[in-house]
């Protein structure tokens, strides 16, 4: 366990070494957030409703997804593909360390730094913009939100790892990640809640894993889902997590058979 703690610490220190890049990255996320925030602020004036959302609920949704992005989507697994491509994987294969635990520890280090910055940025934005936020007080709902977030973190890591596995077969590890990011942007609920889509489309996406990354946890927090929806949603997330981990194991074993340590 200690070795993975050291990986978390190393990742944190690594970010601090290249702090200008990280700060610029955080500034960029704030700019992205501002566009979505002001767009919804214009669309839902105070006292009115749109798609079943009051201004308070929608702005909480938008700021909530911005925070959850740091918790769930912050990752280092994008380096996995390059790691395989340039042959650095060989070093891991002879070390007494689990390759996936190592990258998950890197993810935690990265998330810790992103969360720290997100808390500061969002606090500043809340002070400046004074949005009418919604605060959930029901402890059970908060607990279920936390469970959903935990599985979303694991699921996103599995997605990141699967995309990294492309490195076994192709040097183009960035292009699929680019598409994945666009899908997340639209279908995980970063730009808008999925339930504003036409009913048939929204229902279709409930069967895919994407809404469970951001949309579902924040919907639980907002108290807009009844208990049966919450339990079915959490079960679906768990099911997807199991499916993705089985698939990842298969791809990993196949990839290892294909791996030639090219680059070393």
């Amino acid at each position, binding site marked *: 366990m200690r070795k993975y703690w050291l990986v978390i610490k190393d990742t944190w220190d690594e970010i601090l070494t290249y702090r*200008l*890049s990280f700060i*610029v990255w955080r*500034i*960029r996320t704030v*700019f*992205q957030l*501002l*566009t979505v925030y*002001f*767009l919804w*602020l*214009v*669309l839902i004036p105070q006292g009115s409703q*749109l*798609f079943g959302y009051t201004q308070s609920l929608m702005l909480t949704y938008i700021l909530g997804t911005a925070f959850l992005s740091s918790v769930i989507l912050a990752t280092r697994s994008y380096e996995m593909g390059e790691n395989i491509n340039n042959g650095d994987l060989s070093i891991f294969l002879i070390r007494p360390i689990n390759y996936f635990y190592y990258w998950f520890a890197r993810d935690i280090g990265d998330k810790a730094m992103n969360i720290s910055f997100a808390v500061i940025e969002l606090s500043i934005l809340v002070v400046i913009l004074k949005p009418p936020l919604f605060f959930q007080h029901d402890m059970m709902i908060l607990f279920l939100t936390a469970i959903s977030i935990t599985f979303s973190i694991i699921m996103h890591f599995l997605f990141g790892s699967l995309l990294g596995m492309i490195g076994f077969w*192709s*040097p*183009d590890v*960035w*292009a*699929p990640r*680019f*598409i994945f990011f*666009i*899908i997340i*942007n*639209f279908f995980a609920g970063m*730009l*808008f809640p999925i339930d*504003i*889509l*036409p009913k048939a489309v929204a229902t279709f996406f409930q069967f895919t894993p994407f809404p469970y990354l951001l949309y579902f946890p924040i919907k639980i927090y907002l108290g807009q889902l009844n208990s049966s929806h919450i339990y079915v949603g959490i079960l679906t997330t768990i099911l997807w997590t199991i499916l993705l981990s089985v698939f990842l194991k298969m791809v990993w074993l196949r990839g290892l058979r294909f791996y030639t340590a090219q680059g070393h």
Partner: protein
Amino acid sequence: MRRYLRIWWLLTSAASQIAFQSRFGAVIFLIGKILRFGLFLVFIFIITGRTKEIAEYSVWQIVFFFATFNLIDALPMFFLREVYRFRIYIVKGTFDYILAMPISPLFRALLGGSDILDLTILLLALFLVGISFFHIGPIPMENVILYIILICNAMVMALSFHIFVLGMGILTTTVDNAIMLYRDLTQMGRVPIDVYREPFRAIFTFVIPIGIMMTFPAKALMGILSLQFIFISLVTGILLFGVSVWFWRFALKRYASASS
């Protein structure tokens, strides 16, 4: 001029061949770009399907703003892609070789290989500009001329930002952060600047002139931009270009060729 056109053509042909070296990557990137373009458009239609307008603009006006944004965004992306590769030239010392060439180093650093993949978005944006233009209603010819002038002005501003990035690249050897920051700032122009509340609106218009670049041309076409703002736009464009060229020369004199 013809010599430079020929050089641009040769470099762009070479860059295109590199882009299609891996067809898998090229196709995936292309699909991604089209998907992003299309999904945001769908998002606009879903919202306006319910609200009928955004910030007092009709559906097609909002689509026109979005199409204009894509046009202004895609043109520099297509022509000035070489700027994204500039850091490598500085870090590896390849820039020395560029300096020794009998062509302008600024031209080579800016236009040394256009990105063929961005041509798709450029064409899509032009198509959407055309469609939304006809849906907005009858537009006087002078507004169309003003629109074209302000699009050119936006191009000059985009060019100036890229020259600034190159200058910073020489002085600090970092390019990626500045160019990505520029990309994200301009992305704020996907929606008309009127969406932002004060003081953000003033900041995004006059301090970081996204509004002037992305929103003003479309507003001029719709006939809702005052003469005063048109004048401010043109002066800002000329000033930015002048200062960026000055900054490039300033940076070039300090190029230490440390990596070679």
